């Protein structure tokens, strides 16, 4: 895209795609905005009426909103921390020349291919079940009292499941980055008298700054919308303990059949996502600059 001509041509060529994407995005957005100003309940269809910003007021003052906002932030933050830290360690491990490395790599990546509903069910019934789960069996074998995960630490249970699902993604990106680290840089550090930890801290970790940023940005986008794992395991409970914004909107729309409030909630979620993205890009985004 060096010359005026190629730039102009480029614009013309991508125009159809941009227009299609724009329509694709704008139609649902406008409809959501429209619905969010209506008193629209699925239980008495045909009786919609314009209520202005009342739905927003209702959604934002609902005590469930603050609770689910907090849950969303805790969930996103914890999963990010776990996947980045553990992902870095696993990637470092896989970067070593271990026997059967290709098989181990495949196994590490596997969770990413499992559907969220399926993995949540596996965790719920095979691993975390207080009677028949593997964790309960381990606890009992060690003479400890098994934990009833979804009753005693429901949010932690969800965090573990989601972190397990996203660990492969982080590992994969960080591993690729590690493999592109120039071996000679590490050797130069070694000649400069750096020990293993200093080399990791001053060379490897600096090299990983950019991929870690990418992992954080992408995961943040997807982790705000975690839904299946909650739906399958706790249904948002007990109480509101595992309800995040996505689940709250779902329960507004399809448990209370209140489309208007759900639409308002959806728009609030869009605004929140943008606020998070704004701060995130401010904090970590400078790593992406060349």
């Amino acid at each position, binding site marked *: 895209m060096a010359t005026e001509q190629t730039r102009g041509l480029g614009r013309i060529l991508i125009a159809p795609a941009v227009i299609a994407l724009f329509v694709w995005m704008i139609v649902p957005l406008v409809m959501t905005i429209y619905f969010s100003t209506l008193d629209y309940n699925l239980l008495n269809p045909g009786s919609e009426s314009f209520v202005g910003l009342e739905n927003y007021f209702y959604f934002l003052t609902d005590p469930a909103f603050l609770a689910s906002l907090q849950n969303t932030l805790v969930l996103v933050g914890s999963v990010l921390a776990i996947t980045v830290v553990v992902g870095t360690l696993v990637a470092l491990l896989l970067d070593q020349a271990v026997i059967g490395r290709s098989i181990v790599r495949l196994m590490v990546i596997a969770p990413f291919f499992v559907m969220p509903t399926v993995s949540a069910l596996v965790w719920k019934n095979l691993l975390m079940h207080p009677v028949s789960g593997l964790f309960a069996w381990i606890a009992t074998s060690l003479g400890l009292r098994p934990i009833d995960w979804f009753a005693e630490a429901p949010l932690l249970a969800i965090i573990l499941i989601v972190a397990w699902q996203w660990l492969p993604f982080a590992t994969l990106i960080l591993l690729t980055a590690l493999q592109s680290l120039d071996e000679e840089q590490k050797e130069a550090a070694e000649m*400069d008298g750096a020990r293993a930890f200093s080399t990791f801290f001053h060379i490897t970790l600096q090299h990983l700054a950019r991929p870690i940023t990418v992992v954080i940005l992408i995961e943040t986008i997807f982790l705000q919308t975690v839904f299946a794992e909650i739906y399958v395991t706790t249904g948002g409970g007990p109480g509101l303990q595992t309800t995040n914004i996505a689940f709250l909107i779902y329960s507004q729309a399809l448990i209370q059949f209140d489309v208007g409030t759900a639409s308002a909630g959806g728009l609030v979620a869009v605004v929140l996502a943008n606020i998070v993205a704004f701060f995130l890009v401010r904090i970590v985004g400078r790593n992406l600059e060349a």
Partner: protein
Amino acid sequence: MGRITLEGVRKSFASHLIIQGADLDIEDGSFVVFVGPSGCGKTTLLRLIAGLEDVSDGRILIDGANVVGVPPSKRGLSMVFQSYALYPHMSVRGNIAFGLKMAGLPKSEIDRKVEAAAATLNLTPYLDRKPRELSGGQRQRVAIGRAIVREPKAFLFDEPLSNLDAALRVQMRLEVTRLQRQLATTAVYVTHDQVEAMTMADRIVVLNAGRIEQYGSPLELYERPANVFVAGFIGSPRMNFIGNESAKRYGAATIGVRPEHIKASRDGEGWEGVVTDAEHLGSDTFLHVDIAGIGNLTARSIGEIGLSAGDRAHLLPDPAHIHRFDADGKALHA
């Protein structure tokens, strides 16, 4: 202090013997160049000295102490890599200071040393830049700065100039030798370029397929090459080798004459042949002459001698500069 001694050093990767028994004594303060064709094991030998590879057999002594098994960071050597291997996220200052920081020096002393090194290498205006904001020559200087600032026992250079353009290479060649003489620190320098080797070295190690073919001063290698390989590798254009009948008359399996020791003329004494190519450099002329029963020989004449392709020419070798080799390629001395 920086005397490096190699005793029967061998190195194999898997089942391939890459270094087949190197014995070498590098004196303190000397500039030693490893030269040889690509893939002959120069880098491997240098990395063995640095400690970045483990020896398969033999001993490496630095100032008399065996360093086999000693990690690179404890050997007191510093290395300039072919790729420079600068730390991309650190400024020039950070790059040069890194080794001192790792050694735990106080900040004021680090600053003083970094600034002194930068001044020596004309890097002062660039201290706060990142490596990617520097030209190739400047990066090269940073790599050298990183090596000198730690005041090591010896510098190890792995083809440090091979990524620079020709003019800069000549300039850096002079600067590196000048710097080394000024610091009087032992230097081991790897290159595949025999001109670099001849101009920079106090002593040259010629390597071929993992063997040391000869170890000596540049002039020794030029005047008394130990074998056909060294004779052919040192000197440009390459030495002419003549087998068969003509060699037998000198009592050798092969004789060698350097192009500069062959006198070419339009009509005169010597072997007669046809000029196939003539390279006119102005200062010199390289003539490639086909001679029946001997082959294609190269002759170098000073200035312009007015012969060009297609002309007939006579070539007369200087008898005082004929090198004789036996059937195994070893030099025969009268």
